[in-house]
């Protein structure tokens, strides 16, 4: 456990060390390359900024209206308890839109049921195998101005559904 934490702390410094020492060995002009890349990165952020504003506003409004939470509740009522616990539906739904909001819900579940309860275990696994679909899709596609996303959304939902199902099964097993 301690080792794992150390590893996660040391991950980035080690990576930077490897990149730089490898570059020195190859006699790359590191600073010049860095500046060139940084300029590139800057341009990319500027190009996605309007997207982010638009997206976060829409999600913010939808959340503030209470629709997301209520929709999650309705879906929770429809899905049989044995297949997917209704307490966890909000986490699964919100996670598709906003990672920080989902984290808040996960912490609520930890507080209420404890991280080692069945629900606690399921949400922990869920958190590690799902992504913010809508956020990722809009940022990545808007960065290259693609509007027709074709089978990305069905595929993403499919993968997420598989991940959710797996979390519930695994969470009940351990």
């Amino acid at each position, binding site marked *: 456990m301690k080792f*794992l*934490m150390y590893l*996660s702390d040391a*991950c*980035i410094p080690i*990576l930077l060390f490897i*990149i730089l020492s*490898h*570059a020195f*060995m*190859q006699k790359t*002009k590191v600073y010049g*390359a860095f500046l060139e890349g*940084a300029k*590139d*990165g*800057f341009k*990319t*952020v*500027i190009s996605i900024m309007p997207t*982010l504003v638009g997206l*976060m*506003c*829409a*999600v*913010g*409004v*939808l959340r*503030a209206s*209470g*629709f997301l939470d209520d929709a999650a509740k309705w879906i929770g009522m429809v899905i049989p308890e044995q297949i997917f616990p209704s307490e966890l539906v909000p986490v699964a739904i919100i996670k598709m839109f906003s990672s920080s909001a989902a*984290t808040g819900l996960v912490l609520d579940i*930890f507080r209420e049921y404890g*991280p*080692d309860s069945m629900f606690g*275990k399921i949400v*922990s*696994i869920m*958190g590690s*195998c*799902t*992504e913010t679909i809508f956020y*990722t899709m809009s*940022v990545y*596609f808007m*960065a*290259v*101005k693609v*509007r027709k*996303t074709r*089978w*990305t959304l069905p*595929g*993403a939902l499919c*993968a*997420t559904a*598989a*991940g959710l199902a*797996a*979390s519930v099964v695994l969470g009940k097993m351990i």
Partner: protein
Amino acid sequence: MDYLWGGMLILGIVYGSMTGRMAEITEAALDSSKEAVSLCITMTGVMCFWVGMMKIAQESGLLKALSNKLNPVLSFMFPDVKEEKAREYMAGNIIANLFGLGWAATPAGLKAMEELQKLNRGDKSTATKEMCAFLILNISSLQLIPVNMIAYRGQYGSADPAMIVGPGIAATAISTMTAVVFCKIAAWREVRM
């Protein structure tokens, strides 16, 4: 995208008017735009830093070595992408994702999308099958060790916060496998049509 975005806003406003949350909606709209900009400012620094680092790795050939290591995976998922840069950025993104370096993964991913767009021979506003596959793979989450989740579990007094690593990897493997199968079937159907 147009309908999705407009629909989200209209739905939010209509629903909010029914539940009497107009004030909250005003606040949310303004707060979210502020939040988006401050996120962008944070991201600008991170993005500059990581793309800069990636550029070093690219010029020194480290990124190329990595993408060669991932060659079997890349060739399997993206058989038609032969272009060096696109492969390198995709490899960078996949590796950063595996190690949970979300902040490094996004810059690489966005650069990869730009390179894929350059290869887009058709209509530029329509995603290529490589873009679809790359994004689905990204969303299926390739993370090996969910560091944040372990930290939260520890905070809330779990007896064994890291116990979820194994099941987490299994669940991720299942979602990623589903993603791969889905992409393969979708690409195959496209060729036949």
